[in-house]
């Protein structure tokens, strides 16, 4: 079964979740670098999807992203997450200056999910129809757009930190060291919708909201 999938260059639910996770990882790192939230010395270039990304070398940021996105990947497989929000706040005033929404839509029918969650050995694992190459091309285009946003986003002229909020289904269990929080808003914000990409299982919309002065 897997061999035929390989030949047909199809994508499984797990593979799709992994791709989405990678997109989130590179996208968030790009945002952290491009928006100048952390010193540029703490980033180093790495090539993925045929594109050079600047990835943070800070151990704390790396482990934070690894934990959060690892958990999100799990939820993506279980189709429990609706949205991820990268919130950029002023360290001193705690004011939300910018937020990046990554909305997830599940395109394939949800019927198989339970079986996959149960064993993973189900006879009919979910399979997307899209070629990985095309998906990666779409992801590249979104990341390029993220890089391009620097031209219109306002300067973050203060010490800023970031946080990631995960919007999940209500019956989602809360893992250890996670907690429920409040959603964030930016009053009088300007929103820009970037390109979206789809793995034919997960569809990803990226929206940036920033303070409109």
């Amino acid at each position: 079964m897997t061999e035929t999938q390989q030949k047909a260059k199809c994508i499984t639910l797990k593979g799709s979740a992994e791709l989405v996770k990678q997109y989130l990882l590179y996208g968030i790192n790009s945002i952290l670098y491009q928006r100048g939230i952390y010193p540029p010395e703490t980033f180093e270039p790495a090539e993925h999807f045929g594109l050079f990304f600047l990835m943070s070398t800070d151990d704390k940021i790396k482990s934070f992203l690894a934990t959060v996105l690892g958990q999100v990947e799990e939820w993506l497989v279980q189709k429990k997450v609706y949205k991820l929000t990268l919130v950029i706040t002023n360290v001193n005033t705690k004011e939300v200056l910018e937020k990046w929404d990554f909305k997830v839509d599940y395109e394939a029918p949800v019927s198989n999910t339970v079986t996959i969650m149960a064993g993973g050995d189900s006879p009919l694992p979910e399979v997307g129809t899209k070629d990985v190459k095309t998906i990666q091309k779409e992801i590249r285009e979104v990341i390029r757009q993220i890089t391009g946003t620097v031209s219109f986003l306002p300067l973050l002229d203060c010490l800023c930190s970031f946080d990631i909020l995960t919007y999940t289904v209500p019956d989602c269990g809360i893992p250890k060291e996670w907690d429920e929080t409040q959603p964030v808003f930016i009053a009088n914000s300007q929103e820009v919708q970037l390109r979206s990409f789809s793995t034919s299982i997960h569809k990803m919309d990226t929206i940036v909201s920033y303070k409109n002065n």
Partner: protein
Amino acid sequence: MSHLKYMKELNSLTRMDDAIKGPAPRWQKKHLEASNSSINLSLNASRKVISGSFVNTSNGKTPTKRSDIRTKRTPSKANKKSPMAEMLNLLLVTGRASTTPAKTPSGGDRFIPSRATTNFELGHYKLQHHADQDGDKGDNISPSKREMQRLIGENFHGGDINNMRVLSYQNKAPAPPEGYQNPLRVVYSQTKTPASVKASTRYIPQAPDRILDAPEIIDDYYLNLVDWSTNNILAVALGANVYLWNAATGTIEQLLELEGSDYVCSVAWIQEGPYLAVGSTLGNTELWDCSQMKRVRVMNGHSARVGSLAWNSHILTSGCRSGQIAHHDVRQREHLVSSINAHAQEICGLKWSPDGKYLASGGNDNMLQIWSSTAGQSSQTQPIYSLNQHQAAVKALAWCPWQNNILASGGGTADRTIRFWNCNTGACINTIDTKSQVCSLLWSTTYKEIVSGHGYAQNQLTIWKYPAMTKVAELTGHSSRVLHLAMSPDGTTILSAGADETLRLWKCFQPDPHKKKEPSDMKSVASRLKQSIR
């Protein structure tokens, strides 16, 4: 008798201020024994009727014998007649209110609240409190409003928030290091340069006023090959030759030509007069009288080439490739006053302050030294300040003409900064990154501005506003680095010598025409006044 009794009772009734006399009437006693609600019913009913019959009286006064009788009778009567009709009837017949309380049937069909037993404050509080709680739950809002809220929420969250859970990992990512500044600030603030250019109202021609050829000018950062005298004569060293260009007439004369493979390394005019000092590769410093085109004397004292020269009245200071500084008294036969090992490597910048108190020397060892000249002896063997902040050779040196203790210095390719020093304290006042090698610096005498000559990438001259250090103008045109700068004696024109073998004259410090007119206007006014007085 009954009539008299009646009159007496009526009298006591109308006297409202009278105290209640005697024991409580029987009807009252009877009703007290009955249930609470029945008292209320009857009392209230009586009050209503009383107000209807215009007899303002308290409840306690109403009873009479007749009412007692009536009370006894009421139940039977009430069955036959409607209570209202009876009441009306009574009022018509007797004209008395006191009879009414008994009229009301005890099991009346109206609810009359008991105000005495009602705890209004508590009730009010409870009602309010309850309403508040409802408001919190959103239970008491209209369906349309609820729908509106739901839609707003969906717009905000991209879905019904009540069906979502917002989770976040509790071990937050670290904040950036304290004092860190967003490097993007440069990108955003870079656009300010043209704004500051606009802000200055003065017109600065972007093209050079004249271009002169300077064939074979040596492209060497460590030499000083151009100087402009107070007599408006420009001395330029081209290879082994020194040429004099009279800026007023435009005539060119050759002053000297060295023999063999020697070349001229530096030229410097004395502050006043026709004397020009010329440093050569042999280590000699020659003194020329340019009015007669004659060599006056040759002063030795160095073992290597003399790349920099500076005058302080009769003292000529020379800097050598070996790092030595020599002071020559040009009037004396024994010209060498002192010789100091100032730098570890070649000296490329040497300037006396305008008041002659300090000497600044910059070397290829990235050091900037400041020496003081105390009266009597022209120098000391130790510098008063030894400044190592520059990351490359320090060639560009310029003393501020209006603040004697301010020195500007520029670093080479690896440094690219202009630094300002207070030579009284040795403190670095300001530093600015020019993004390009600083080959030369000159202060304007007309404006509070400083001009710098740069190398790669633009080979431009930059005019800076001091002390704000905002760019006033950038003069581009040289196709290779700007090696030397010189200023005309009137302070209006800057000459730049480029490694592209051209000398360009920039009229960038033209005095403001409006400012010049003012004094003349004042004069004319004064003279007119004089005339009128006469």
